[in-house]
């Protein structure tokens, strides 16, 4: 799994490519934490190129979605791939965590 981060002002976009399994979730968490430490006000986790998302990835997203929200900041998932979208929808994450377009 690879994560590319692009920064524009206080907005960070994490482009995730590949498999967000247990190990991938750990890597994603580290990148989100790096963005938070860099004082990101908005973090967009682009999952258009993610081929897999498991519960470990969901837990990492939920933990930091809450943390950002509690400090009046934003973390959203954008453009989930079909495989990832199915997982987000099945677990009830889609409505609140996926950016609406």
């Amino acid at each position, binding site marked *: 799994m690879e994560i590319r981060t692009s920064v524009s002002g206080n907005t960070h976009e994490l482009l995730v490519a590949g498999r967000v399994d*247990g190990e991938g979730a750990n890597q994603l968490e580290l990148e989100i934490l790096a963005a938070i430490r860099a004082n990101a006000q908005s973090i967009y986790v682009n999952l258009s190129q993610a081929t897999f998302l498991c519960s470990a990835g*969901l837990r990492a997203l*939920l933990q930091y979605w809450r943390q950002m929200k509690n400090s009046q900041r934003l973390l959203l998932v954008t453009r989930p791939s079909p495989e990832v979208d199915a997982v987000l929808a099945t*677990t009830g994450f889609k409505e609140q965590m996926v950016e609406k377009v």
Partner: protein
Amino acid sequence: MEIVFHNRPEEKPRLLRALEVFAAEHRLPAKTRQAADLALEEYVTNLLNHAYADTALHEIRVRLSCDGRALHVEVEDDGREYNPLKAPLVDTSIPLEERPIGGLGIHLMRRFMDTLDYRRQGGRNILRMTKRLEA
């Protein structure tokens, strides 16, 4: 096909590769393979994290078979007794602010596989899952 591996995270990729080979050989529809991939990731990760009270090597056996109508996946281990079907259901209508962190793994197994069956036999957990062949 039977895959035998050990309770070590670095051995999980072998299982994934075996599933991919099996899926290609049997021309499984993508959704069938994806469902099995997810269910195995969830269950095996749970085994690695919680099934063993010691640090010894333990064998985990995964058997894959296909009868033309469904993919059958069976996981056998000698860890502590654990019936995943007894895990409480997850209420996905609870807002994310209030949602418990845990329980999503078994929820995904229940939703993505068509049937789950568990038995304890000879000191071993045996979980059988099926997924209909669908495109």
